[in-house]
């Protein structure tokens, strides 16, 4: 793959529309309402085929659970907060919770968070491409 002229999305379900704001895309089953990340043809909840429609996921949600990671693989900067967030209107996403102290006293289960988009911690692929990632931060 040749080097891209603009940053690439960290996952295929992070959308970077030309001239628009980034967003996360879900695929919602029109039969049972289950929301998935990434394209698919069959619903894993109810088995319905060809009933999945894309849906723009919300940029707000609440913190479901987290872990503060102090030991990771070589080269990965620690600590960081691994967070599972329930987005308002459906969809659950995992990512880093930022702009908060990595301290269990400060992080509250159920706290409101918002999704923000920025450079993927300076990580580049072999071709030198930059990436845009999503992060969560506390919401006032």
């Amino acid at each position, binding site marked *: 793959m040749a080097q891209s002229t603009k940053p690439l999305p960290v*996952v295929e379900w992070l959308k970077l529309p030309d001239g628009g704001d980034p967003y996360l895309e879900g695929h919602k089953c029109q039969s049972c309402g289950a929301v998935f990340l990434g394209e698919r043809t069959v619903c894993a909840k109810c088995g319905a085929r060809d009933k999945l429609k894309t849906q723009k996921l919300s940029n707000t949600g609440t913190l479901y659970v987290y872990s503060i990671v102090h*030991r990771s693989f070589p080269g*990965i900067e620690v600590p960081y907060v691994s967070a*599972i967030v329930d987005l308002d209107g459906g969809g659950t996403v995992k990512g880093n919770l930022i702009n908060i102290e990595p301290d*269990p006293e400060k992080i509250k289960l159920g706290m409101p968070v918002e999704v923000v988009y920025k450079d993927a911690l300076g990580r*580049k692929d072999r071709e030198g491409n930059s990436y845009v990632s999503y992060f969560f931060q506390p919401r006032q």
Partner: protein
Amino acid sequence: MSDVFVVGIDMTKFQKAGTGPAVDVLGAQAALMALDDCGLKIQDMEALYCGNLGQAAAMVGQRVLQQIGQTGIPVVNCANACATGATAFREAWMAVKAGVYDLVIAVGVEKMGGGLLGGAGGGTGIPKEGLLGSGTMPAVFAEAGMEHARKHGTTFEQFAKVSVKNHHHSTMNPKSMYQIETPLETVMNAEMIAYPNTKLMCSVNVDGSAAAVIASEKKAKELGLMGRAVRVKASVMTSDPWQERDLVMPDVNTCTRNAAKKAYEMAGVSPQDINLVELHDCFATAEILHYENLGLCGDGEAGKMIDTGEVALGGRVPVNVSGGLLSKGHPLGATGIANIYEVSTHLRGEAGKRQVPNARLGLTHVIGLGSACGIHILEKAS
């Protein structure tokens, strides 16, 4: 259909990851030990079921036979994450239950690397670990524990107590990787890996193997092996049914609950009848969840179970008296059979200092993330 029995079973002493012999030699050790346990030979076995994860594509079962006797019997190699050993055992059980064979052997074996398992993402692009949260196992199971904390107020200290208990149990198990006491402060002040799991709350990567000789009732009686036989009262596997968060948060609860319900039904017993449990304490946080998932207590009562000592040796239903994965060690493909060894040893009254008195009925449980749950209920045969 007639009952199926474990007539021979044993495990190697679990040892530090990377220090064991080659995987086939290690598997052969447990296989020979299990055969010796019932006085049989590999020539008596009609099939071999092998569980191994690290070399899942490398015909480990056949290589075990190359070490101990190439008799030409059918070999099935299986991989099912941390449920691999239980899967091999269950395949063996099923073949005998179905009447295809009367005498088979199941072998679980693993040589482990050191360090963290898991990791987020992979594939194309850039590394996702530490960018899209964490896929490391300590963090994944920390998050599973935090869900329990969210629902029931479970504390870091309660999770840590699991590790204190299991390390204490292991001081009485000569086959355990570690035999050291770890007081609560030591556990809580150990290096934090992924809050709330400290290093002493993570299972130990070890090399190890375990094997079981499984017989039909007819064969066990014919061979005069009923005296120390263990009846397989239930053998159940489940996978994880769809859950709203399971794209990003593996659900180890529902598949365990489903498997437990089926296992109790199959065995015709209730959780209150169980005298001891070996469950999948891959992390201290996980053990707490499974007290409730296995019906050992009601929902929200797991914290109380660990606080009151009901799950310690001497308590109402001792859990992981072997030392568990936290201290005995967790050689992925061997774990499911090693758990069955532990329970069988108690049912036979041969567990020495850690013996659960008058044990008649025990349960083993493993979870392979992804997910596979295997539960066996075992009963003293005579």
